[in-house]
């Protein structure tokens, strides 16, 4: 059981908590402590809105161990409105509805289950935005 490695990412998995760079102001997700842009320390926490759009996507048929039950499932690069791109599954839609540029929002869903007795890992996925008002 890998309880600790999932537990320590709960702020990211459930709330999309990343960071802001004090020096250049760029928003970072995942958090990385050293700014991706300017290499200054970036330790101020920032909670992302969870709104973004699909940058690219794929539907995976050849699933890795731990994901066989879900296949086929769709994984996307989602460009968050604050700038960073995040890798996450798309949910609550069929593949033929997906398109690059599609507005999506973060939801919390089951990422994977380790067998009938095993741990259930929850985290972020993205679904179509539910209300047009949510999109700028």
């Amino acid at each position, binding site marked *: 059981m890998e309880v600790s490695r999932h537990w320590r990412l709960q702020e990211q998995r459930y709330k999309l908590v990343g960071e802001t760079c004090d020096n250049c102001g760029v928003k970072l997700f995942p958090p990385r402590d050293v700014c991706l842009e300017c290499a200054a320390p970036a330790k101020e926490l920032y909670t992302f809105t969870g709104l973004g759009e699909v940058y690219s996507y*794929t539907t995976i048929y050849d699933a*890795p*161990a731990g994901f066989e039950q879900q296949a086929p499932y769709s994984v996307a690069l989602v460009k968050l409105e604050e700038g*960073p791109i995040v890798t996450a599954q798309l949910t609550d839609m069929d*593949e033929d509805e997906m398109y690059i540029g599609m507005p999506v929002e973060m939801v919390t869903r089951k990422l994977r289950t380790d067998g009938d007795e095993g741990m259930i890992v929850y985290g972020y996925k993205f679904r179509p935005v539910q209300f047009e008002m949510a999109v700028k």
Partner: protein
Amino acid sequence: MTNVSIIGIGCTAVNEHWDTSIRHLAWYAIEAALDDADISKVDALYVGNMLAGQLSQQNHLGALVADFAGLRGIEAVTVEAADASGGVALRQAVLAVQSGLVETALVVGVEKMTDQTGSPITAALATGLDADYEAMHGLTAAGAGALLMRRYMHEYGVSVSDFAGFSVNAHANGADNPLAMFRNRLKAEAFAKASPIATPVSLFDAAPAGDGAAAVIVVNSEKAMDMSPQPIRILGSALATDTLALHDRKNPLWLGAAERSAQKAMAMAGVTPDDVDLFELHDAFTVLAALSLEAAGFAAPGAGWQLARDGQIGRDGRIPISTFGGLKARGNPGGATGVYQIVEVARQLRGQAEACQVPDAKIGMVQNLGGAGATAVTHILGV
């Protein structure tokens, strides 16, 4: 230019070697390379491997392989950089010999995929990605290739069938290589109809995982002149990295590490893309072939696929690629792939490529990528 030259090469066929263990695979390639160099001793061994810890529950390959190959006692270590492990292992050997601290260095890339089957292999290959932020969301190596391919199609207005030329070329060359995993020719019409692995990447787009081992022996270039009738000079050698995760790149469609390592290696060799007679690139997926051609300067951004469409990547084209089948048809034995690429280019430059020979090949470029281009190692070879 480095002062390092290749004096011995050898490899096994890439295949599902059910009856052969990882130690035997490594030994068969080493035995061939020692025979080719006509020597029996080396001073150091660099083993390129990605997956033995996961698929065979076997780490510590440096000591294992040195011991099993009758080289007990020498300096030996495993080098891991996902599927760039083989190319990076050669890079370590070049550094060691160039420094003068190691006289004769042996590099073996070895991968044993078929100790497992199916989803554990897919999961093991995904460990070259970011475990917490990519693989935990179900992304696979093929999935990462697919994300790039879909975005490439969107930005540059190309379709799936526009990538077919890469696989058709790889299979045409693989058909002439007795060591290739797939020797069937592929029709462009079949490409677009193949079953999906991770849309839009299909079975005929993705390179197959296979078992295999390849080995090269390097020494100082002056010494090589006395030891080998046809030493191959390592004119340039460079390694660069990019963000591990695709999502952290400002422009995911630009392979920054591939560009940097290619430019450094070419500068070291004193060559430009115009001087390069063949380019063994990392065609794990067709989109990576297109992006590698662009990053290395053989095509403008967004135009790499046109080289395949226009027949410029064949053995008689402007820039031959995948001349023994590439990853797509020779097969992709993970951490061994980068050493296969070196063996193949050395055979081309020696004029020993038989049916796969590129006419008048004098300068060959080799680029081995790890993950979705997070590691890129480039070597320029010459006679």
